[in-house]
């Protein structure tokens, strides 16, 4: 197991940087929420953001697809690049960006539409399917990708809100996957779920890693250790330490990281 992790970590180091953040500062009104964050997120890798509540990990996540634009009082400074291109450049359309950088939220939020329409939402607004058959195919593929197909294939026209919590969250993942993103951001995707549903989502995250880069914010350190290859520890708006998950959990360099993972702070 350990050997596998090490081998995997070595393999990951050779992959490309997908997102690179330099000197990112975020203010909510007078509150300095994120201070000078520098980080390189790799392609086809699961990166976990951990840290106590209010440490800025979700804030940083929402910077990556510019969801913070929807909050009036939020100001973002610094540079975040996706494939080397600054996403806060004025020429970048945040709407297009969010199609490339999908997001799954803390609470499952299926639209009050049928299961099919939920998954077809992204492909429809972005014109990814030329006809109904292609759309059907995307929907099926996405639902299979989210390990939900077998449970819902006979009731695609039922409302998505009628599913159980874990199924709803997988539906939301399928919905995000259907848009064919390059990066998938997940903001505490399992915090509203029971352990069995959590296990299914974690398995899913591991599978999705072959297709694109995933960033997951989590409160559970066990979860970070289980699903991620890279871990970033945030504390009081600072990115304290970033490295391979293995190193962060077995050999943290910063005393604050060590205190947090051993349960002394947070």
């Amino acid at each position, binding site marked *: 197991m350990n050997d596998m992790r090490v081998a995997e970590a070595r393999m990951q180091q050779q992959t490309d940087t997908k997102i690179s953040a330099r000197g990112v500062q975020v203010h909510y009104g007078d509150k300095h929420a994120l201070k000078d964050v520098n980080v390189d997120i790799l392609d086809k890798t699961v990166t976990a953001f951990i840290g106590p509540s209010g440490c800025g990990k979700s804030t940083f996540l929402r910077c990556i697809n510019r969801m913070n634009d929807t909050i009036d009082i939020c100001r973002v400074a610094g540079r975040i690049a996706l494939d080397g291109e600054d996403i806060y450049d004025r020429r970048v359309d945040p709407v297009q960006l969010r199609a490339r950088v999908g997001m799954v939220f803390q609470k499952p939020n299926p639209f009050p539409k049928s299961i099919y329409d939920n998954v077809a939402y992204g492909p429809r*607004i972005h014109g990814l399917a030329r006809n109904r058959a292609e759309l059907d195919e995307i929907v099926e593929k996405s639902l299979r990708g989210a390990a939900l197909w077998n449970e819902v294939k006979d009731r695609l026209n039922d409302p998505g809100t009628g599913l159980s919590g874990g199924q709803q969250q997988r539906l939301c993942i399928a919905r995000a996957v259907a848009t064919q993103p390059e990066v998938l951001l997940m903001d505490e995707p399992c915090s509203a779920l029971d352990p069995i549903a959590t296990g299914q989502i974690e398995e899913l995250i591991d599978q999705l890693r072959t297709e694109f880069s995933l960033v997951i914010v989590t409160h559970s350190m066990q979860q970070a250790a289980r699903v991620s290859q890279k871990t970033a520890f945030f504390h009081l708006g600072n990115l304290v330490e970033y490295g391979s998950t293995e190193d962060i959990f077995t050999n943290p360099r910063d005393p604050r990281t060590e205190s947090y993972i051993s349960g002394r702070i947070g």
Partner: protein
Amino acid sequence: MPVSWTLLIVLALAGAGYLLTRMRAVAMAGGDTRKLHSRPGHYGWNAALLTALPAILLIAVWRFVQPAAGTALISMVALALAAAGLAFALIRTSPSFRARNAVEGMVKGLLIACASIAIITTAGIVLSMLFETGQFFRQYPWTEFFFGTTWSPKFGGGSQLGMLPLLWGTLYISLIALLVAVPIGLFAAIYMSEYASMRMRGVVKPLIEVLAGIPTIVYGLFAMITVGPLLRDWFSQPLGLGASASSVMTAGLVMGVMLIPFVSSLSDDIINAVPQSLRDGALGLGSTPSETIRKVVLPAALPGIVGAVLLAASRAIGETMIVVLGAGASARMGLNPFEAMTTITVKIVSQLTGDTDFAAPETLVAFALGLTLFTVTLGLNIVALYVVRKYREQYE
């Protein structure tokens, strides 16, 4: 002795009862209020309520059932009842008496009584309308009332009292009003809840709601002296559609303006109630704000919006003043929106004003019209409530 004096005395007795019982309770506990089951004030309130409520209730019921009864007798019985209540409360007061629970029970009864008054009143209105309508139909055939296409009441015999022209006018004017109010109100609500900044919203929302505070007679004046002549001079005369300043269009437009705040304010609340997580979800998939609104927020809010529209419709149907001043008073069935027409409410007023004989069908027809109107708006309200309730459950 007038009843108001009796009432004052009862209230004074209740006040005295409060103070007496409270003191008695404290005295019985030997000054240590911790020994009492309830706070001293509860003992006082128990006495005050027991003194005042039965006596006041007695006066109210007696006056209602037998208005001619002598006030002296009523006063005496009421005062006796109040005194008995006070005495009863005083006797019951002891440290172990659960005054707090007793007061709770009486307050609950009071609340139930208030809620019942609204329901009883509605039932009373319907019953009185039914009674008068029954009298009307004994004098005038119901088929001609419901299906007659001519409205020409003549006191003295030979009236034709078909309600279809009035119903048509009502629906036509309401339709135009809704065509004005629904899109404008809805779009205003969308702007306020989805696009406007907090500061903008703080300015715009109260300004729109000012419209709701304008009395309808003022809207009527506006319709009569501004909108009507404007429409006549710029549209109906140049287009050769009529020469009347009073028209369906005038009343409809102005009524539409009146309904804008109604629609916008209800829709705004409903749109705001759509969870933010749905908007985040849609935006996170790369929707533009307008796609988010059209494809996610509005479908989720639709049942509530339909409810708001139906409520606005029932207000439009019941509106009188704007129609009197804007659309005229001639009962007519036609398609030309620049002609004068009239509505059920206007005719109810005109049949009942002036020197009227309350036994003639020309007068009694007002009650039949009123009942028809009541049925229509009640039906709309029920449908609105049903729609709102049925679909609200689906997305929570």
